[in-house]
């Protein structure tokens, strides 16, 4: 509170310059020495040029060691600069100050255009990205490219499914719902059974989660192409989004779902202690669940496909998923691009990511391998969740377009959904208000609205 925040913007920019002034010249072939000290990992070949990488994947240290042992002519110098927004904040500040960014950076596909518009990412088509296009799932590649340009190499995806507690369902006599209609019926049955659990949580701060649910009913919030960066189309209040939000608002009003904030300690506990019978999750969700403590020892988890709006016309959606991009500040862009393509563009290392880090790969040689398809998950009582759920979900995903101010859009979405859950407005009003606030913001930022 006492902090002189007044000057912080300037101070941070100034310190960023000062700090990075000492460590410039990465990737320029001056490896070893003082540089090695700033890496989290050990450099195997001190003579080789280094490429700095920011990433937060679980078990990434093993992947980096594997890469460095396998390559004599290039070494990865890895730093975990925080997860998601924490990392983006640092990256954003180094873009502003003109130095301090790594050569290669992990970015979720939804924020790529927020950085391309600031000319912070390198178009990888110059460095052979098109040659590896065939190695990656179509939807993931689509998310990483804009028009003809390719701004990142996909790593993992988040096709969505439904993780549920078989034991709670059985106790309440509920069949696994396959449509949202059945999901609502199941929610009522569960509430009437009176053991205190609700079917699921609808977090107002779900951000990409909420957006994915809207997309399942055909919502396409943004039209944007980096080749034409001043133009944007915004339709966050289309019928699909309104239908979905109205549906959830109904569940909220009837007390059939919880509205706890996601990703808090409370939420993590409730996920595994039986407060929610269902965790609507992305493919990285099982890994997340297993990492949580205090879980109910008698829990019986199973996976099923995400409920559908229309069984005749199944729509698959994606929540999260990340990529490696090369920054404009990289000195040796070719080498950096090679690292971005090869870190996980390799069966051995992608398998490490799958087995140790519970990633859902976008890299086809692993994604389409029989080992991955038939992998049995002990946490799910030996269920082959990839075969049963996530591979179909991934195959049906066609990609999505995000805005170049996605963080702002999500913050506004959170505010509107919170107001709705508080009973201040209905779903239609919330999305209409979101639409006008985003339009106003885009205009202020100099965009032409299509």
């Amino acid at each position, binding site marked *: *509170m006492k902090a002189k925040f007044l000057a912080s913007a300037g101070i941070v920019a100034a310190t960023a310059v000062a700090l990075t002034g000492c460590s410039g010249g990465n990737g320029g072939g001056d490896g070893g020495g003082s540089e090695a000290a700033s890496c989290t990992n050990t450099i195997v070949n001190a003579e080789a040029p280094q490429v700095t990488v920011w990433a937060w994947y679980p078990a990434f240290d093993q992947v980096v060691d594997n890469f460095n042992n396998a390559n004599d002519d290039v070494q990865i110098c890895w730093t975990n600069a925080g997860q998601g927004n924490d990392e983006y904040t640092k990256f954003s500040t180094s873009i502003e100050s003109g130095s301090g960014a790594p050569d290669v950076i992990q970015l979720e596909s939804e924020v790529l255009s927020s950085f391309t*518009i600031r000319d912070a990412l390198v178009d990888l088509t110059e460095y052979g990205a098109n040659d590896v296009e065939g190695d990656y799932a179509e939807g993931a590649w689509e998310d990483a490219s804009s028009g003809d340009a390719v701004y990142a190499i996909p790593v993992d995806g988040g096709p969505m499914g439904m993780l549920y507690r078989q034991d709670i369902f059985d106790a309440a006599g509920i069949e696994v719902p396959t449509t949202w209609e059945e999901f609502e019926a199941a929610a009522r049955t569960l509430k009437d059974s009176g053991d205190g659990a609700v079917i699921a949580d609808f977090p107002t701060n779900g951000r990409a989660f909420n957006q994915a649910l809207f997309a399942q009913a055909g919502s396409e919030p943004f039209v944007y192409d980096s080749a034409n960066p001043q133009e944007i189309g915004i339709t966050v209040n289309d019928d699909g989004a309104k239908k979905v939000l109205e549906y959830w608002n109904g569940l909220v009003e009837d007390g059939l779902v919880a509205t706890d904030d996601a990703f808090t300690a409370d939420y993590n506990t409730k996920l595994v202690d039986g407060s929610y019978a269902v965790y609507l999750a992305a493919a990285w969700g099982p890994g997340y669940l297993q990492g949580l403590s205090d879980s109910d020892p008698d829990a019986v988890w199973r996976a099923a496909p995400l409920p559908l709006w229309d069984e005749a016309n199944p729509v698959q959606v994606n929540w999260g998923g990340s990529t490696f991009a090369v920054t404009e500040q990289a000195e040796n862009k070719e080498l950096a691009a090679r690292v971005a393509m090869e870190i996980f563009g390799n069966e051995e290392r992608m398998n490490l990511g799958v087995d140790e880090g519970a990633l859902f790969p976008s890299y086809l040689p692993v994604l389409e391998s029989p080992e991955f398809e038939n992998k049995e998950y002990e946490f799910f009582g030996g269920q082959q969740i990839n075969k049963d759920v996530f591979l179909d979900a991934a195959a049906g995903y066609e990609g999505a377009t995000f805005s170049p101010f996605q963080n702002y859009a999500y913050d506004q979405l959170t505010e509107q959904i919170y107001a709705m859950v508080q009973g201040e407005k209905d779903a239609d009003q919330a999305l209409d208000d979101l639409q006008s606030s985003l339009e106003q913001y885009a205009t202020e930022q100099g965009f032409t609205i299509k």
Partner: protein
Amino acid sequence: MATTTAPTSSHRADVPQKADHRPDRNYRRRQRWGWLFVAPFALIFVTFLILPLAFAFRMSLFTNTLAAGTDFVGAANYVKAFTDPIFLQGLGTVAKFALIMIPAQMIVALLAALVLDNLATWASKFSRLMIFVPYAVPVVIGALMWGFLYSPRFGPASNIFNLVGLAAPEFLSQDNIFGSLVNIVTWQWAGYYMIIIYAALRGIDPGIYEAAVLDGASDRQIAARIKIPMISSSLVMVIIFALIGTLQFFTEPQVLRAVAQGAIPVSYTPNMYAFSLAFSYSQFNYASAISFALGIVVFVFSFFFLFLTRKQSGLK
């Protein structure tokens, strides 16, 4: 220092007689030493405060929009800031905090100091330490800790309220978040203000109390009529501290936002707004303008308050 310890009696006698340049040189030499002593501080002060401030001020005179690039706009960002409903709403929020939170801290601090001043047992020394301890907890840690205490799942509230058969209040809901924040800040800062007030009370000549007792004054009268008026300058200082801190309210709501994203929007206070503008939405220029605008507001409020209390603080 050398110049004050060195002089002999003859030297001292010389000074007034031997014309003008000798004391002048002494004075200049002393000044040189002075600058040397100030240098380490000045270097850091200029590097980490003055230069960034100047840099930020320069940034605030430009705009940089996502789609249209950088332009010099002069004061336009400030015009925008003072008509920005989000900024003004944030100012309204911190003004509300100032109205509730500062009196709350003052009352707790003053009462504690007056009570401790009257007691001279080991228990009072112990209490003094205990009241002060929260200030020794870093603000971020304190806020994180309260986040857990307020949690309906991990916090003690549900257990306590269940004992008497009531439902625990939701501390992190939209309606209660204001009070929850006031509580954190009061817990953290009242002890610090108590120490300042207590020190001022200790500085009063006890002879005055004896005289008052002889005149038949009760303890309560002594507190209200003698002690409080005599420490008014300290009270003014404490209020200024609290006022500046409250207008720049940032850390506690920012930390608590992690567990109450709906109840604490990103633009809850002006500083949080500036933070998210700069680091979440990459509008560094407008964020600088918001920061300076807030600085202006803080200056005006503090100045106005000091002007109103110029009698009490002895500035007149």
